[in-house]
């Protein structure tokens, strides 16, 4: 907290020069993880991917019960069928991904040098479809969530390894995601950090606010509130509406860069997807 106060004072003195004081992504990632490891010293590092279940014993017990036979099992099975089916032109999803798409979700989002943009798994799946003459899928739930659930299940437990290549465009995308994460918006004037950094671990009525570290590691999620499996894009748009900010387009760079920033912060933590949440 002291550092933030000091930073606040510095702001009045040299606002224009502020941009220069941001450290490198790697340094920021170290600070980010250390902040949460210190804020929740009793939480095992890998447990951060389980969000509220790492912080609330009662919820954890119910989660363990549900994990015996999780309802997202249907998503995984449906996703596997969709993933394995060949496209009309004979190709398949496997042809669009490294290692035939098996055990690779820990590398996403991935910066694509050709387009100069961040490719989340959802964007990559839709890109694969359009390249093979198919309509892109709805990026919030349904088949997209099921395919992602299957792909994530093949990476279960692998450590996140999101890379920011030595390319100014990649760094710019990372900074854009970072800016979005810390920018207050909507009539409620909250940023993602308001709830998931300052408010991490607190209750919002019966919800426990998950720490930002590991926040996106268990997507796609089967939420009891949704009654089906949903993607990270769906959750981003839902959070926007909850602070009364009009959401961006699902396939916008805004959300891809935000996912890029958050996933980079998860590096080293295990893939927790598909996950289950209240």
């Amino acid at each position: 907290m002291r550092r933030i106060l000091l930073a606040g004072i510095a702001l009045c003195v040299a606002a224009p020069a502020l941009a220069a004081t941001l450290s490198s992504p790697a340094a920021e990632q170290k600070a980010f993880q250390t902040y949460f490891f210190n804020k929740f010293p009793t939480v095992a590092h890998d447990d951060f991917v389980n969000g509220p279940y790492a912080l609330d014993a009662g919820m954890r017990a119910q989660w363990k019960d549900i994990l015996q036979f999780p309802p997202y099992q249907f998503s995984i099975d449906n996703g596997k069928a969709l993933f394995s089916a060949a496209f009309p032109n004979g190709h398949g999803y496997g042809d669009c991904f490294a290692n035939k798409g098996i055990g690779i979700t820990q590398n996403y989002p991935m910066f694509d040098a050709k387009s100069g943009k961040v490719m989340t798994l959802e964007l990559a799946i839709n890109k694969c479809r359009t390249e093979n003459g198919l309509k892109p899928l709805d990026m919030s739930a349904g088949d997209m969530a099921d395919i992602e659930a299957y792909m994530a299940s093949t990476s279960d437990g692998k450590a996140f390894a999101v890379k920011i290549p030595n390319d100014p465009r990649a760094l710019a995308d990372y900074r854009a995601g970072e800016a979005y994460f810390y920018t207050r918006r909507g009539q409620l004037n909250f940023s993602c950090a308001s709830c998931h950094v300052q408010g991490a671990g607190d209750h919002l009525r019966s919800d426990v606010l998950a720490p930002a570290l590991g926040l996106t590691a268990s997507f796609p999620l089967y939420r009891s509130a949704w009654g089906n499996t949903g993607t990270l894009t769906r959750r981003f748009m839902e959070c926007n509406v909850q602070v009364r900010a009009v959401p961006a387009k699902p396939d916008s760079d805004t959300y891809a860069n935000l996912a890029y920033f958050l996933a980079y912060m998860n590096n080293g933590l295990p893939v927790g997807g598909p996950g289950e949440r209240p």
Partner: protein
Amino acid sequence: MRNFVGNTATKFFVAVLMLGSLGGVAAHADTSKPVVTQDMALAALTAADAEAQKADAAGVQWTTVPTLLKAAHFAYLYGDYSGAAKKAGMAEAQAKTALTEAKEQASLWQTQVIR
């Protein structure tokens, strides 16, 4: 977005007002509140729409603004010019605030970064 409730309330409000204003105009001129003419309402709507478009373009719009604008246009359509002007004014103010919020945050966000 659950603006369902807002619409019902607005319809009810408009209906009551329409009856009231039809009777009111003939019977007596309400001196305390200046009569909002159609032109004044239209001007307010135009200004609100313009400001809202700026916030939309900047991607910083609040979900409350489109709801208010819809209600304002609805009121205008039914001849409730004072209601339309009031809602348009609120919509414009909120769109302006959304833009200001974004401008401030453009530099403020960096103070929140975990270092």
